[in-house]
């Protein structure tokens, strides 16, 4: 299982974005995941989103925990620094990284075991603090890497490949994210790139803790009949409440929709989300309503997807801490060290 570098040759006809980068420039090394794994589709969506947003790849920092899902940062954004940390602890590492340099984009990638089992605490606390990040859970209901044990997001009543029934209640990460104050909450499906890519783009443009729970079937251990995280099951029970048709960063929008069907959400940086309503009464700015609605639909066996909640003008951890605009990792002796004169005064006060 050695790391494979993709050959870099640019076809002259490959489309380039505003920065002159091709799609290739956002790729990583070749995936070593199982063919057909949902996680690979999410990596592809991340690549697409970054390409379309014209992000300089090196300005993104990718962090993850441990698991098949957490391995994926090797497979996208090869020019970005990455950090495969320890199991369940990506949120704290990302928090620290973000404190050190507020100018980069932080992309946290995790699994359902990594986040909902071993890392439930860190997940909740990083979101609580409003760390400016995109936090994606590639949710397959099992521990893929350790060969198919149930994770904490496995639904009660779901059957494992070996026929074992899961009797424990599941953790609903979206509900938790809402409860602890994420300012951007979405759920999507790795099999629905059209839905996922704009959501990732919007999450990147969002300031504050943006959380995406992405159902991502594990073809090796959790894609059988009886599983509630199989491709077939998710397709059948997917209930999209809205559709983020596109993201228009800082540009005027011209759209043709009947009144009431489309909402333009403007984020702090001027970027705009064009949100097409699929459910007339679903309001993604009403947190309490969203929570109730999600509980009801979950009870009915539906998997609600879409942009579930957004607070366009959110604060982040740096606002709460009142840190300087300049990245902390660039401050020098002059700015940090009070100096010998001050120390003499301190000494004098201690006599």
């Amino acid at each position, binding site marked *: *299982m*050695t*790391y494979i570098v993709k050959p870099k040759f640019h076809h002259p006809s490959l489309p380039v974005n505003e920065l002159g980068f091709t799609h290739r420039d956002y790729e990583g090394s070749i995936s070593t995941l199982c063919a057909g794994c949902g996680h690979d589709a999410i990596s592809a969506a991340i690549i697409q989103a970054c390409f379309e947003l014209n992000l*300089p*790849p*090196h*300005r993104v*920092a990718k*962090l993850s925990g441990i698991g098949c899902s957490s391995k994926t*940062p*090797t497979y996208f954004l*090869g020019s*970005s*620094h*990455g*950090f*495969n*940390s*320890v199991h369940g*602890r990506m*949120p*704290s*590492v990302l*928090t*620290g*990284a*973000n*404190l*050190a*340099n507020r*100018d*980069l984009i932080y992309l946290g990638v995790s699994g359902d075991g990594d986040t909902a089992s071993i890392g439930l*605490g*860190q997940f909740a*606390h990083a979101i609580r603090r409003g760390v400016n990040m995109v936090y994606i859970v590639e949710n397959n209901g099992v521990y893929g890497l350790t060969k198919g044990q149930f994770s904490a997001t496995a639904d009660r009543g779901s059957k494992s490949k070996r026929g074992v029934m899961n009797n424990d209640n599941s953790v609903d990460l979206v509900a938790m994210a809402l409860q602890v104050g994420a300012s951007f909450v979405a759920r999507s499906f790795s099999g629905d790139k059209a839905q996922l890519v704009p959501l990732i783009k919007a999450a990147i443009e969002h300031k504050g803790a943006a959380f995406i729970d992405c159902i991502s079937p594990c073809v090796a251990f959790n894609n059988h009949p009886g599983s509630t995280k199989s491709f077939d099951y998710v397709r059948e029970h997917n209930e999209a409440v809205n559709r983020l048709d596109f993201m228009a960063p800082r540009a005027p929008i011209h759209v043709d929709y009947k009144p009431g069907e489309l909402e333009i959400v403007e984020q702090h940086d001027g970027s705009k989300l064009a949100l097409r309503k699929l459910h007339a009464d679903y309001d993604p700015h009403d947190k309490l309503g969203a929570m109730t609605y999600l509980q009801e639909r979950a009870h009915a066996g539906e998997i609600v997807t879409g942009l579930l909640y957004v607070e366009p003008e959110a604060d982040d951890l*740096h606002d709460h*801490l*009142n*840190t*300087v*605009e300049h990245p*902390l*990792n*660039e*401050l*020098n*002796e002059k*700015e*940090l*060290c*009070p*100096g*010998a*004169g001050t*120390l*003499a005064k*301190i*000494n004098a006060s*201690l*006599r």
Partner: protein
Amino acid sequence: MPIERVNDFVVRFANVNGSGSASANQLFARAVLRMGVPVAPRNIFPSNIQGLPTWYEVRITEAGHLGARGGVDLMVAMNPQTWDKDVASIEPGGYLFYDSTKPLPASKFRTDVTVIGMPLTAICNREYTDPRQRQLFKNIMYVGALTALLDMDVTAVEKLIGEEFKGKDKLIAPNLKALHIGRDYALEHLTCPITLTVKRADAVRDRIYIEGNSAAALGAVYGGATVCAWYPITPSSSLAEAFTRHCARYRIDPQTGRNRYAIIQAEDELASLGIVVGAAWNGARAFTATSGPGISLMQEFLGLAYFAEIPAVLFDVQRGGPSTGMPTRTQQSDIVLAAYASHGDTKHVLLFPEDPAEAFEFGATAFDLADRLQTPIFVMIDLDIGMNHRLCRPLAWEEKRAYDRGKVMTAAELDAGKDFGRYLDVDGDGIPYRTYPGTHPTRGSFFTRGSTRDRYARYTEEGGPYVDNMQRLLRKFETAKGLVPRPVRRDADKPTRHGVIYYGSTSPAMDEAIVELGERGHRLDMLRVRAFPFHQDVADFVADHDFVFVVEQNRDAQLRMLLVNEQSLDPVRLVPVLHYDGTPITARFIVRAIAEHLDALKITPLRKVVS
């Protein structure tokens, strides 16, 4: 016969926690200091919950012996709950000062100590109506009485009260009044002075008086730490709290009023170290402060930081273990835990400051070492240093001192075509170059992971690159030996075959013990170890002597374990001297242990006598 001493005795205050006694007791200690006489105060606080007993001990010592002495010459017994134990702890010929408002049966006293009763409660009830005032001023009142009993300079106390309440001037007069009520009562009704007295001297000089935790936190400010993540635990909380205070004072951008630092009270110690690792990976200087239980929780991250080579600074303010152990008592019992923290083959750099001045110095240097060596650095403090005020040399900082950010490759160097391999040993010192995230659009990025990789940070499970990397880490540890603070050697006035190794908070007790041992005719060379890995000086020192005592404050002789293990030293020649009951080690203890051993050596072997 009453003990007769000038500027050399121990006063212990037995109080009820939450009764406001702490500031009065500190006032007493500071007043002695202001008279030019060194003091070594110690808090003994079994718990922080209101109503439980606490003690405050002040060793008054013109000779400057700052270690705990053991025994009490004057007991100020203000807590009925602990009365019996307190009375029993007084040295024969000592004094007992108590609140005599309620009469006590004769059986409650000792005949070999002088009893001084003062009806403090009655006086307070007469002078004040507010219950809180009655409580608070009772404390100041006994300080007033002590100034008379010990023949102290009352103007020193008056001045201190003025300084303490500067800005809250309304409080000055009532405090002065209470002080004088106590003093006047003593002068009028009690025999003053007693045979223990404080006399003006000039033995404090330019020394400062500071808690180790506060000094260490100031070291972190001077050392350029910008990120601190912590989780409250005694006895380390006051370090993070002091950092917060110092930053609010010295780290605000004057233009914008915004903070040049970020402090997170994390959800646990795992997250604390995770935040530190993330921040340090991203080029900020970051630290956590914790104690043994926290270090236990941090194990997995410590292995990651070691193996992925991420700078991190940890202040371990040690307390009594194992488990919750003795949370408010002192020990040096995390040495092995820290030195070999985490699974697999790991070794970490430890620094052992002896007092607040060194806690400051090492607290700052730790950040240079972490960046230079790209590895976790532990600053091993303990409760005795961390949570007590200690007299020490002034904190020092060279004006031109620059931070050593270690080997960080810049965008310009990458552009110039410099070969970047994250784990490539270009200089032969085992230390590779790193890049900060976001440095260059196309060069110098790498993937950080805790799993094995080759010199260019590419994932591999091949044995060759794994061994290559592990060997390089050993080379790096070898490099560390020359960078960490060197041991301090102090030889006896004449050559001797015996030596003693000690470290950290044992210093003052050892300094005192060596004098007494000398008086008893035992000469020893001394080596104060200031860091792990050990400098070559340590092995040389052991080689120079037949026997070396290793004095420590833990049960298992943990530093000795490291000496035997890392230096392949003969264990027979390393004699452990171990104090670990949770109280600070004393000169008395060291003298007894070492003298017993050396006296036994002097006895002629049995066989010789027979033949």
